[in-house]
């Protein structure tokens, strides 16, 4: 039959099941989406949300079950089928080519590959029209490589609207936005929904789910465990559904801050290879205190992390370590100075995927502790790795397997063990829980709490404002490489921090150059 009646769902998933080897990613998942409705797909990392969307988009073929769009069964394994039927997706990691302009990115693939021309004038006019109608301001002529994260997200949404998407799927869309930008996104979505669009909103941020969705579908370990109206639902209730059991997060008793262990005085860096460097940053890290760094990604967190990790040096300004100026700053000196570094990307920076657990365990200390005169001492190294595995509860079949085969949580535990074993004075934790499940999150936070209690100075960098506010004794906000003043625990509301994240409140520094 042509067309869908008013009561018929625009999207229906029926009994979707998918295995990866022994792992069940989706287990009999069914739900409906109706015209002009926003539903939230809620679940932890690894609950099966991404797999489900990949099946909808034909990237994977389901072992069982089927997808219907506007009443028509979708042929499995055909990536174009869902797109052609009017489903658009905004991925968590943007699917844009930085070397192309905005309009080129938007028209990519629209006319197939055989059309003789791109008809740029027509495309650009249509994009301008759409961006006005949905308040998605962006210039079609600029190269995507030069856009901010927020602008790129707008391009992604425009891409879907350009294809006349009737259903829009957004995967963790707010992870890269300030609270204010999130509000703007929600306004755009409400407007689109009023015009008949349907939205699937994938997230694990409960307050956002409650704010935008009318219905919520909760996934846990690949199964649909609950489906309910958001009206009347509470955050606690949804959290319990998502995690499956009450989990107790570690608590942070107030402490008396100790002496300053690391101090930046008016530091500016070039931020080589980063979106932005640091601009005239002054910062004190005190013993027994967690200093949180909030901000939208790409605003200088990487530059600050590189600086403290030893990968970068101040172009101007000074960095003091325990009252002294370190000479020849490098990762090796940072390690020697007792700085524990938990890198942002544990797969590519923190570990070597094809090295085994022993080799990864001694990556930072092989020269000082596990070798003599240039000869490796593998016996000691193996014993050390074994100790770490026991003490930090790294679940693995053997210390001789490649670390690639470990889950993210276990990988992070090995890194934690590696850097915390020497009872470091300073800890740099850059996005330490990103992508981990709740159990591992609490474990990592617990370790940071313990280190704080024993007198370590911790710098916690995170894009998750909740995490920052829960753990930090003082909070700084970073925006375009500038650092806000220190805010004590509990003195700032999220919206106030959000204003700083958006760049408001900074005194424009007098430009020397």
């Amino acid at each position: 039959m042509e067309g869908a009646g008013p009561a018929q769902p625009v999207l229906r998933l029926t009994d979707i099941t998918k295995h990866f080897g022994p792992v069940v990613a989706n287990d009999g998942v069914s739900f409906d989406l109706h015209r002009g409705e926003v539903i939230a797909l809620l679940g932890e990392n690894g609950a099966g949300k991404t797999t489900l969307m990949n099946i909808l988009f034909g990237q994977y073929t389901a072992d069982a079950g089927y997808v219907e769009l506007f009443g028509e069964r979708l042929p499995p394994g055909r990536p174009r089928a869902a797109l052609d039927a009017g489903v658009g997706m905004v991925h968590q990691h943007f699917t844009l080519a930085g070397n192309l302009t905005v309009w080129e990115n938007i028209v990519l693939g629209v006319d197939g590959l055989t059309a003789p021309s791109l008809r740029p004038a027509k495309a650009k006019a249509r994009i301008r029209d759409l961006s006005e109608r949905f308040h998605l301001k962006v210039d079609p002529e600029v190269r995507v490589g030069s856009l901010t994260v927020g602008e790129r997200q707008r391009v992604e949404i425009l891409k879907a609207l350009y294809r006349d998407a009737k259903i829009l799927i957004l995967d963790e869309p707010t992870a890269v936005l300030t609270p204010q930008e999130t509000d703007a996104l929600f306004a755009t979505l409400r407007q689109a929904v009023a015009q008949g669009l349907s939205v699937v909103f994938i997230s694990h941020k409960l307050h956002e789910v409650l704010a935008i969705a009318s219905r919520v579908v909760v996934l846990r370990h690949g199964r649909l465990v609950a489906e309910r109206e958001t009206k009347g639902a509470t955050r606690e209730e949804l959290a319990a559904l998502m995690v499956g059991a009450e989990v107790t997060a570690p608590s942070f008793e107030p402490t008396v801050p100790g002496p300053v262990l690391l101090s930046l005085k008016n530091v500016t860096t070039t931020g080589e290879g980063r979106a932005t460097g640091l601009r005239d940053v002054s910062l004190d890290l005190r013993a027994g205190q967690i200093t949180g760094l909030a901000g939208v990604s790409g605003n200088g967190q990487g530059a600050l992390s590189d600086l403290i990790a030893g990968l970068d040096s101040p172009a101007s300004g000074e960095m003091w370590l325990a009252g002294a100026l370190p000479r020849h700053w490098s990762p090796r000196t940072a390690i020697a100075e007792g700085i524990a570094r938990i890198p942002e990307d544990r797969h590519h920076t923190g570990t070597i995927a094809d090295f085994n657990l022993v080799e990864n365990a001694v990556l930072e200390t092989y020269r000082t502790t596990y070798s003599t005169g240039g000869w490796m001492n593998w016996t000691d190294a193996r014993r050390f790795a074994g100790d770490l595995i026991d003490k930090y509860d790294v679940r693995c079949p053997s210390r001789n397997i490649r670390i690639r085969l470990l889950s993210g949580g276990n990988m992070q535990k090995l890194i934690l063990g590696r850097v915390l074993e020497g009872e470091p004075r300073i800890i740099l934790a850059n996005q330490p829980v990103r992508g981990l499940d709740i159990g591992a999150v609490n474990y990592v936070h617990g370790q940071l709490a313990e280190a704080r209690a024993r007198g370590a100075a911790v710098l916690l960098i995170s894009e998750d404002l909740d995490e920052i506010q829960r753990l930090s004794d003082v909070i700084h906000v970073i925006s375009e490489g500038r650092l806000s003043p220190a805010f004590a625990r509990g003195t700032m509301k999220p919206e106030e921090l959000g204003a700083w994240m958006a760049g408001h409140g900074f005194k424009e520094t007098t430009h020397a150059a």
Partner: protein
Amino acid sequence: MRLEPIEAPGVARRVLPPALAIVATFVVAAVLAMIAGGDPLRVFGEIVKGAVGSKFALLETLNRATPLIFTGLAVAVAFRAKLWNIGAEAQLYAGAVVTVVLGTGALTLPAPVLLPLIGVAAALAGALVLLVPAILKTRFGVDEVVTTLLFNFIFLLFVSYLLEGPLKDPMGMGWPKSPRLIDEARLPRIVEGLRLHWGFALALIAAVAVWVIQTRTTLGFEMRAVGQNAEAARFAGMPVMSVILKTALLSGGLAALAGFSEVSGLKGSLTLDLSPGYGYTGIVVAMLALLHPLGVVVAALFVAAIFVGADSMSRAVGVPTYLADIMLATALLLMVLAILLTKFRVRRD
């Protein structure tokens, strides 16, 4: 199509793909031999006979394997650290040139002093030849594949100039050829009367030494780490640039020893056809050995046997010797695919 990593590959998984790659290589060779009018069984029979069928054949194979062990090690060491040294050919000639410069009478010392001296100097020369592309890589980010390849052409022209100019043999009747080495600069035979020189033993020692370096020393640990993931190595405090340069020195030095060993042990003088592409064949050797230094010895023997066997096969059956080159290139491509298939499974979804 999608590749899915296999967590714990079984025995069949680890053995079957490489075995099939070898079989497929021989099938390809058989078909090509038939096209050339040869009976495949006879062709393979002649190759085996020519490679290991007599004492003379066997010694010839060991002699041919010697430079291949050196260049194979040079490539294996460099590739392990993801330094794509395709210039072993140039480094080999650098070693040969130094051997000729020092070994034709410029130094008159007793052999036990002169030989090690020349060996070390040759290795240094090869190391320096690779150091240039390595510095271009670390300082300017210039891809070393192209620079090392281009260096091969440059260096061969340089050798051509030397052989027609400063290093030309006055008694050579006009041929571009160097004078012969003095006796003290010649590597002696391992056993008197057998045509096998100490270069082969040196190659075996080099293989063991490289293996020890890679598995037992901090430098080896660093070289492997930089090759697997330079970013993580840098984060962990390893001096990545200096590790790459050290790798280049080691790799270039090993390749140069092939030139030293060929001139001093086998030929006695330098001509422009000293190496029939040993530098390039070293890549095949290293890949067939999965970059393992001890595997290089086995792979070099295998490759040498095919070359030596193909020469005598060609004389007997009339199928062109290039069949050997085809077999090795095919084996190389199929082997890298086979190794992948021991670790990943192909999925259709």
